[in-house]
């Protein structure tokens, strides 16, 4: 059973099409990366897959149930989203903020208990923020906020992970550690991952499959090894790309 499937999906933004007739399948154990230039509609695609934006045509299925027929609360236990940026109007503490990830799992009338606090602390430890639980969110740096958002998603504990530029603001060490963490958590849950990234080398390192978004008619997708080549990347970015091989991997960089 596919975790997530689209059927002839078309997405439009103000009359301009991001994609048309997209038939996409996310199977358990797959990690998809989405590459594409600025403004090509990567975020819009992700939001549509998450059911946060209505498609122009076609359907999205979650575990073979039409997404539109799933209650929001039930959906939030299956599918989690990491947004490009977060904006709180009345920022609270780090602990308060990470605990919102437990919302889908808590009965409506209850307060968070010891167990929820323990889980929250564990999630903060995963992103190396356990000592900051009492800090106010507005005193955090960009990278720390990013890690906090990731911890919230870890706590939400979905099977389908949709990440919009998860490595934004992260330093090199955290990029690698957290991508590894996410991937192992996805695999543990026998889940699937779709993420938008701008770093080709992170995609080739952490993804099994990739979508190259050029315009709504030419979307190249498939296993990373087949789809990502010097030539497809040059066409995608309209920029010369160089490739080097080191330690058994191919690395791509702009000329």
């Amino acid at each position, binding site marked *: 059973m596919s975790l997530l499937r689209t059927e002839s999906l078309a997405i439009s933004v103000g009359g301009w099409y991001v994609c048309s007739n997209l038939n996409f399948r996310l199977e358990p154990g797959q990690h998809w990366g989405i590459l594409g230039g600025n403004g090509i509609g990567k975020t819009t695609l992700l*939001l549509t897959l*998450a059911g*946060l934006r209505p498609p122009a045509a076609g359907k999205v299925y979650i575990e073979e149930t039409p997404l539109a027929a799933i209650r*929001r*609360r*039930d*959906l*939030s*236990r299956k*599918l*989690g*989203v990491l*947004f490009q940026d*977060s*904006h*709180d*109007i*009345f*920022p*609270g*503490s780090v602990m*308060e*903020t990470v605990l*919102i*990830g437990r*919302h*889908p*799992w*808590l*009965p*409506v*009338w*209850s*307060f*968070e*208990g*010891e*167990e*929820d*606090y323990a*889980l929250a602390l564990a999630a903060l430890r995963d992103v190396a923020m356990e000592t900051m639980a009492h800090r*106010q969110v507005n*005193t955090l740096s960009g990278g720390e906020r990013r890690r906090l958002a990731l911890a919230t998603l870890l706590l*939400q*504990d979905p099977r389908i992970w949709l990440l919009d530029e998860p490595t934004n603001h992260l330093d090199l060490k955290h990029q690698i550690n957290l991508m590894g963490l996410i991937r192992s958590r996805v695999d543990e849950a026998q889940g699937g991952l779709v993420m938008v990234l701008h770093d080709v080398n992170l995609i080739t390192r952490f993804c099994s499959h990739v979508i190259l978004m050029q315009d709504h008619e030419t979307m190249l997708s498939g296993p990373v090894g087949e789809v990502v080549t010097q030539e497809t990347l040059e066409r995608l970015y309209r920029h010369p790309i160089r490739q080097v091989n080191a330690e058994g991997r191919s690395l791509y960089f702009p000329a």
Partner: protein
Amino acid sequence: MALLRETSSPLWSGRTLLIGIVLSGLCLLACAFGVATGSVDISLREVFAAIVNDDGTVASSVILELRLPRVIAGFLVGGMLALAGALMQILLRNPLAEPYVLGVSGGASVFALLAMIAGLSGYWVNLGAFLGALLSMLLVFGIAHLGGSWSPMRVLLTGVVIAAGWGAVVNFLLAVSPAGRLHGMLFWLMGDLGFAGHAGFSAVVLAAATCLALAFARDLNLLIHGDLQAASLGVTVDRLRYLIYFLASLLTATAVMQAGGIGFIGLIVPHLVRLLFGSDHRLLIPASVLTGGGLLVVADALARILIAPQQLPVGILSAMLGVPLFLFLLHFSMARQRP
């Protein structure tokens, strides 16, 4: 399955309970102060005697017929305004939002003033205010909804423009009214707890709105983080926003009907409570109701005695109390946050 287990934290509820008890105690003190204060000197013992046993003396009729209803009305209006303000600030994602920002009170004012000009008084003026408030609420809702998207910015701009429109009509009505009626009209506009009818209706509205808002308190917490984040964590955002809009409007309409336009409470009390206890709505909602109610009761008591026997509009006093209190807390909390 362990993840699904229902949990409750004794720590959290303990803190909430403590704050609830302290605030309730302060509110009782405020109400006692309100009942014992006035242009006629009545001792607290007499006050208590009058409430327990109506002995028909002047003191007991002053207490039971004038002061007690007024204190109750003040508490209800303050609570309604503070809750409406807290809800509006979430709905519009704007810390400057307050109950009157979307023109609910403007609509109420226009119809209340029209009733006064027509020579009506008492209940009719209040009925006019209530209907005007509801009309304004539907107008803003309808217009903001026309384009299909119901974004905070769109609602805010629509409401602010409609409020400005009502403001112009109010000024027009004041300009063409006979001088004899102007004083009463201005007092109504500035907010006055002198007419203490409808307390039963207000109490029902406040209780129902508080319970409903509390039922959705955790959803409101999520809304702080933005519509998309809230939706992705399981909140039915559109439905919740309609509910907030409806509740805030009903609370404001009822408060305006009861007491005219009392400013400041709805803006400042939610911020005051956030500075003191944080922005978790499970605590923010009841704490705002209690703080708003208590503050308005004290303000009204002071308004009655400061230049007695003349009375000041309570809105003046609520601002005079609230401004220094808020600035002090703001400074205190910023000093605490500094490393």
